């Protein structure tokens, strides 16, 4: 055990910056008058940008930290950028939302930053204990965020469901981790991989541990059959929180799945592959089919988020099946998550604006004729939905393209076919909202007030990102490939 050095702290710089900023916001909150709460939002935004700068600077010091429990590598760095982006967009989208809904408290920003800190720790962790701590920091903050509109019964219900099912799943994950520790004597992913790949070292009960851990992580990324909470929570939670929930904890949990199941436990091959394959199939099909019947936009986007998790799992199954050439599959997953983050956060924060005070107007029908009153807002929502359904020239298209290509290269023809069919079905429900906005006359009940500027800035940023990824994906793919390299 090497003593802790200054270098160790540099390697967790983004997390330190985020956590300090969160503490600062929380301590300063009682001294800031209610009219100036927005100042705390800007402090938090500066914190997020500073964490991003720290992440960029840290690149020169990559390597393991704190006795190998954290790794500062391109993989972690990629995910930290992604999580910070999701946090920044959510923050921009929530400033006016919180004012309109009269829940403008500084704690919101502190919890958002802490949630991001936890997720950042998860993606950098190379030790099961560290993964657990990161997971809980991010989960506990998001449990509270989901219930942030305390006076609203739907928000109460959403956060209670999220909390109960979330801690139930964490308990499963922990039980699995305890078994992994008991069977191998270590919780470090590198040592774990060495111990398991030694000939004849395969412990007999490892499959139980694997399944338990997969259940716990599968809950966080809402794979079928552990998705039941997702639509309820996404609908009931405040919409900007849903934007954050649907991206940050999910991307972090995907990063953990990549690190644990394709890195540390890689030698337990066939079982992991089939777990990924089956959950990819179920998640895609059930997510898309259930979305067809939804009339509530938040719920529709929730099922769409489930379906997207299914496509990501296709990429993971491809990476697993490709064996030593797993790089392509992993890179496709990383690209997909970046595109997904841009589209989903933007869609949910726009829905937060449309739903108005108290989130009364969440139905697709509430948008009837919106294109005639607010052509800009309608066009923006249309572009986001079109990108989510994977039309060419948008990020959604190349995200799906790379995942499907990786799957075909790994000879998963059947799974790819199902995935393609699913993305065709998905077009129907996305376009239903578009049809309501453009093709039907009537007065929209949805809020027709002009977009507040922070929200406008967030939307502009994500649309630029979506079209950049959709038109010039190559530089970004190179980045994803670089990030995928340190894994197996």
């Amino acid at each position, binding site marked *: 055990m090497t003593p802790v050095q200054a270098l160790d702290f540099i390697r967790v710089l983004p997390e330190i910056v985020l956590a300090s900023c969160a503490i600062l916001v929380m301590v300063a909150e009682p001294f800031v008058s209610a009219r100036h709460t927005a100042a705390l939002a800007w402090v938090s935004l500066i914190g997020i940008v500073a964490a991003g700068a720290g992440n960029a600077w840290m690149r020169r010091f990559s390597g393991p930290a704190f006795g190998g429990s954290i790794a500062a590598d391109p993989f972690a760095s990629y995910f930290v950028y992604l999580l910070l982006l999701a946090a920044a967009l959510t923050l921009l989208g929530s400033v006016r939302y919180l004012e309109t809904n009269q829940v403008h408290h500084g704690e919101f920003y502190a919890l958002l930053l802490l949630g991001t800190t936890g997720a950042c720790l998860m993606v950098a962790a190379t030790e099961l204990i560290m993964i657990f701590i990161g997971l*809980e920091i991010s989960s506990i903050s998001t449990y509270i965020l989901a*219930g942030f509109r305390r006076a609203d*019964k739907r928000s109460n219900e959403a956060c*209670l*469901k999220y909390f109960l099912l979330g*801690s*139930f799943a964490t308990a499963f994950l*922990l*039980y699995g981790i305890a078994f992994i520790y008991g069977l191998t004597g270590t*919780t470090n992913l590198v040592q774990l991989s060495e111990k398991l790949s030694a000939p004849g070292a395969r412990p007999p009960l490892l499959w139980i541990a694997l399944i338990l851990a997969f259940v716990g992580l599968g809950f966080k990324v809402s794979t079928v059959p552990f998705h039941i909470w997702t639509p309820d929570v996404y609908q009931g939670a405040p919409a900007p929180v849903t934007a954050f929930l649907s991206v940050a904890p999910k991307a972090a949990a995907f990063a953990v799945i990549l690190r644990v199941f394709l890195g540390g436990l890689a030698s337990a091959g066939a079982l992991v592959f089939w777990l990924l394959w089956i959950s990819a199939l179920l998640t895609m099909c059930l997510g898309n089919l259930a979305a067809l019947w939804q009339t509530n936009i938040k719920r529709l986007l929730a099922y769409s988020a489930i379906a997207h998790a299914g496509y990501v799992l296709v990429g993971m199954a491809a990476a697993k099946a490709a064996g030593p050439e797993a790089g392509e599959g992993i890179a496709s997953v990383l690209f997909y998550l970046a595109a997904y983050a841009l589209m989903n956060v933007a869609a949910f924060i726009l829905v937060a604006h449309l739903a108005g005070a108290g989130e009364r107007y969440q139905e697709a029908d509430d948008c009837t004729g919106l294109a005639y009153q607010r052509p800009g807002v309608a066009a923006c929502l249309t572009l986001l939905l079109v990108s989510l359904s994977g039309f060419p020239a948008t990020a959604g298209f190349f995200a799906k393209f790379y995942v499907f290509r990786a799957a075909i290269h790994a000879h998963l023809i059947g799974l790819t076919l199902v995935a393609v069919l699913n993305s065709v079905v998905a077009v129907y429900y996305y376009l239903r909202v578009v049809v309501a906005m453009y093709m039907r006359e009537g007065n929209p009940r949805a809020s027709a007030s002009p977009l507040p500027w922070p929200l406008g800035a967030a939307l502009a940023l994500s649309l630029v990102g979506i079209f950049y990824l959709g038109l010039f994906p190559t530089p970004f793919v190179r980045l994803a490939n670089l990030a995928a390299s340190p894994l197996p």
Partner: protein
Amino acid sequence: MTIPPHWYLALGTGLFTVGVVGVLTRRNVIVILMSIELILNAVNINLVAFSRMFHSVDGQVFAIFVITDAAAEAAIGLGLIIALFRNKETVNADEIDLLKW
């Protein structure tokens, strides 16, 4: 006389089962929360037993983290239940049914 490790594991498995059954069958939210705590304690028993088996301290450190986490979860969970009770006056999971399909 020392107790062999698999006895601890059997106890852990028993607690885990009680916890899972409790979460799945009970309707009172507070009892569900207690059942989750039972599962976490099953994890702790396993961790400490393994730690003794390997003569290493890792498992005990992990168990302390789990205990801390369980405390945080209980604090948050009870807070959330109070927030719900103020609005709905119920802690019965079957009556928490605004969000469906």
